[in-house]
């Protein structure tokens, strides 16, 4: 009946709930990590942990910008297609010109362009984000197939894929890049006016607009960044696989959104924390990794992942009500 916003009682401020608020998901991750280290054979080894980190690097990078998208009250389904398209385009241009910089520029530019168009359609023209990015997801996926004729494009420039498989201090380069993304977007969210404004837009778009927040511009910037980062992740993935593959990363958008939701980002906008998103990404990767080590068949893994997502969201609701 009285389900208006003000009717929900604020959570009590016991020390535990404050700790839970700021670091709840990281705590869950830590517990899971310790549990898996003890009970799952081969889990706690350098090789496995490196593999785990690599496996979440793509999702991690894109989750940074998806967090902004969700915080501002939108979302973007086209990221998986952009990852594939950027890889294919980058590989094609590198092969044709022999110039890595040109390939990288083409891939990043096209990703940013896709994001920009998404942003203009959503924020300026006013088409629903679900419809807009559902359309661009299919268009861009199609373009990837067209550009590659449906086949993987092998990269002939050694320096590029050597970079994708290099490591610094024993940590693979893609993982460093993901950490870099988390740092940059964490700063952007917490320490800049841009981050504040994004949250205000997600919390109440009309009020933000009347308060002089440039709503359209910020949304376009967020979508453009989303496209740019997805393309960047696509390039890194292509470097790791030494080829641009047009059918990679299908369904990635949903994994990214799942990780953000696990990290407590509100789908209705206005609430986001970078630490929790990092935890969400790590939990997703850890569970996947542990299930593989335990030889759980992939069919069951889908079920388990869905249940974990539901469980996390319900835990969060329960916590809010307590």
């Amino acid at each position, binding site marked *: 009946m009285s389900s*208006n916003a003000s009717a929900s009682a604020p*959570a009590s401020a016991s020390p535990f709930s404050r700790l839970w608020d700021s670091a709840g998901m990281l705590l869950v991750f830590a517990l899971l990590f310790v549990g898996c280290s003890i009970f799952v054979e081969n889990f706690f080894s350098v090789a496995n942990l490196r593999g785990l980190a690599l496996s979440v690097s793509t999702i991690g990078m894109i989750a940074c910008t998806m967090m902004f998208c969700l915080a501002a009250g939108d979302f973007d389904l086209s990221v998986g297609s952009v990852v594939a398209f950027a890889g294919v385009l980058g590989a094609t241009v590198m092969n044709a010109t022999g110039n890595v910089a040109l390939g990288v520029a083409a891939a990043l530019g096209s990703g940013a362009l896709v994001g920009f168009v998404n942003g203009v359609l959503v924020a300026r023209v006013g088409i629903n984000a679900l419809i807009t990015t559902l359309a661009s997801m299919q268009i861009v996926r199609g373009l990837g197939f067209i550009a590659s004729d449906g086949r993987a494009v092998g990269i002939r420039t050694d320096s590029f894929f050597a970079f994708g498989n290099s490591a610094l201090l024993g940590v693979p380069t893609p993982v460093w890049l993901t950490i870099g993304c988390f740092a940059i977007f964490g700063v952007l969210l917490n320490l800049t*006016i841009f981050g*504040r404004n994004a949250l205000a837009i997600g919390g109440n778009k009309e009020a933000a607009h009347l308060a002089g927040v*440039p709503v359209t511009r910020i949304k376009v910037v967020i979508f453009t960044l989303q496209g740019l980062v997805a393309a960047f992740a696509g390039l890194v993935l292509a470097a790791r696989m030494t080829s641009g593959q047009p059918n990679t990363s299908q369904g990635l958008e949903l994994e990214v959104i799942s990780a953000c939701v696990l990290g407590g980002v509100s789908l209705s906008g206005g*609430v986001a924390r970078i630490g929790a998103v990092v935890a969400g990404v790590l939990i997703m990767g850890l569970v996947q990794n542990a299930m593989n080590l335990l030889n759980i068949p992939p069919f069951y893994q889908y079920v388990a992942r869905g249940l974990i997502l539901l469980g996390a969201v319900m835990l969060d609701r329960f916590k809010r009500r307590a």
Partner: protein
Amino acid sequence: MSVSARASVASLDFVALAKEFPGVRALDDVSFSVRGGGVHALMGENGAGKSTLLKILSGAYRPSSGSVRLDGIERVFGSTAEAIAAGVAVIYQELHLVSEMTVAENLLIGRYPRRGLLLDRAALRAEAARLLALVGEDLSPDTRLGRLSLAQRQMVEIAKALGRGARVVAFDEPTSSLSAKETARLFAIIRDLKARGHAILYVTHRMDEVYEICDAATVLRDGRHVVTHDSLAAVTRDALVKSMVGRELTNVYNYRPRLQRPEGLEVSGLAGPGLRAPVSFSVKRGEVLGFFGLVGAGRSELMRLVCGAVEPSAGEVKIHGARLASGSPRAAIRAGLVFCPEDRKKEGIVAIRSVAENINLSARRSRLRAGLFLDFTWEKRNAREKIAGLRVRTASADTLIGTLSGGNQQKAILARWLSENVRVIVLDEPTRGIDIGAKSEIYALIHELAETGVAVVIVSSELPEVLGISDRVIVMREGLVAAEFARESATPEAVLRAALPSGSSVSAAAA
């Protein structure tokens, strides 16, 4: 479930009720009784605890301690559904109805009559018609709810409560959007409910209504019970007001003539949705210009055009002589024109963010930033200063603004605009739903702003308020400017007459 069949008299007691939120004691040991067959006024400033008490009664909140007794039986409602089942109905200002459904569907929502697996349409319609008759509403049960006026929807909400067997009915400022005629109808129904033995709790800020409809009154202040009058016969208005604010209020409007300087805001030939002809007016620096009119006269629409919330189809706005780019609130704010919208919840606050963030939302980048990043020190200090300066009652600057009372939310929104270099401020119904104490603080602030040379435009539906604080009054009627009065010639009768549609004799707006 027939309402008339219940002859017994309901009783409702609040026993040592308390509710705590982080850092705030919203209710503290509140006890009083509401007798069936009577209307009991619940009064108090914003933040006094009225809303919290209603939410406990409706089952939305659980009390921290104490209890609610219904007909002498102690009840703790775990949910709104339990409260409804026990016979409690709370009619909020914002109604909980579905505008896409018919009146009948709304009335019986959640308990549709069935025949086998199918909806029994005939029974639905018959029961709906019976409930509508209870509130004397002559409506087809098949009308889509969205087509009804606000007053009619309220009647539907009351009928719905009666249909669910409500014995205790609480009204939360039910007349705030009703005309005088509609208010009279509502009162007739409340008297009818009273005669049937229902216990009625009536939350209001309007003194006239207390004396017209209520038999008893309880005043809360700062979450505590101040006084309960079992009869209002010997209680004066001044005494009630005094117990609400804890101090005597002399002249709430506190008007002083001010030095008026050159034009601050000039609007010429502005046209757009909601206006039937282009509008021109101007406000001097240091002047307070009031806009009066009935609900729907086009005042809010005009202000939205002035402030760039809606793009005008013609005309221009000048601030201190400089032309303003149209259709952009951002450009307006940069030029020093700020707008405080009518609907606080929908257009004013970002409910799920903190008081500090809400106050700093419009701050200039140069202030809010040190180098590339947010200046947390400045941000905190500015929020704290504004909170203290406007006496916003909040546990801390980091509290979510949505958890504050309406008056405190309004003060926080005003604080946002004072962060800016304001030249013109447009306030659309700044005191709606706000108690007398907060109102007089807002009036004082308006005077303070005007004295420093700000041009002030205030839209209000409360005639005494407009006349009390304005240097000049413009009256709008049906999308047109109908008249303009200087302070000296603005008598209540003349202003109201100008606001009424020709041929109408009801005074729909005098609050």
